[in-house]
């Protein structure tokens, strides 16, 4: 009865809401986007190198293609950093860090590698970024109680990626 009354009041004059929220979307965390971001960085470096080696046409086309590769590389290195930061900041708790004391250092390493991947066209850096994100993904899924496996990415870049064994 009281709930119906409160609903009536809410209909007449909307009642202010108060947030009892988890991170939104509630409970949905996955490092997959970070892995996709790191793979994309590798792919962009490959495309940039290939363009330099093979391009013999108009200069303007070269610059257009190169600019697009650089832009996507920037965007996806930042996406990788963002996705890891969200999981680290919102999902990871003190108890997880006690269990995996390397977590803070690993996240810092990903931040640095992500920045270096933006600054350079070094393929080794891009691979190191993916490697660190894979390591983070393994820890994440262990915390979630899920087994993981390493599989070859089914894309133009076929590096190994960590996926949950669901």
């Amino acid at each position, binding site marked *: 009865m*009281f*709930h119906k009354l409160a609903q009536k009041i809410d209909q007449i004059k909307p*009642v202010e*809401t108060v*947030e*009892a*929220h*988890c991170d939104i979307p509630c409970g949905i965390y996955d490092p997959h986007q970070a892995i996709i971001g790191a793979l994309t960085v590798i792919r962009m470096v490959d495309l940039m190198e290939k363009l330099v080696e093979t391009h013999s046409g108009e200069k303007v086309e070269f610059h257009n293609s190169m600019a697009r590769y650089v832009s996507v590389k920037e965007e996806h290195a930042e996406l990788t950093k963002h996705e890891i930061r969200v999981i680290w900041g919102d999902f990871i708790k003190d108890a997880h860090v006690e269990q995996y004391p390397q977590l803070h250092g690993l996240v810092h390493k990903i931040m640095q590698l992500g920045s270096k991947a933006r600054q350079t066209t070094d393929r080794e850096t891009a691979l190191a970024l993916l490697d660190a994100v894979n390591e983070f993904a393994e820890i994440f899924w262990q915390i979630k109680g899920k087994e993981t496996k390493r599989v070859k990415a089914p894309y133009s870049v076929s590096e190994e990626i960590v996926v949950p064994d669901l």
Partner: protein
Amino acid sequence: MFRLLKIRGHSLFPDFREGDFVVIARFPFPAGQIRAGDVIVFDQPGYEHMIKRVQQVLDDGRAFEVRGTQIDSTDSRNFGPVSKRHITGKVIWHIRQK
């Protein structure tokens, strides 16, 4: 002195469900202080108007460790203790859905 609020989110599920209403006594409260187990409403800087359960009273009642019920609840594990000056009120009546 009193205020009706509607709950959004699942951080306090199953104790409080999305769509439940609460009546809060606005701070300073007419009776009693905040104790562990109380449910409070507060404005944490950088976050929204939030509702959580007090887990621990700190610093002689000047700060409060708050918790949700879910592993990924956004609570003091994320933003630290809630200062007394950020508290809007204490839940005195929980109006549940059927």
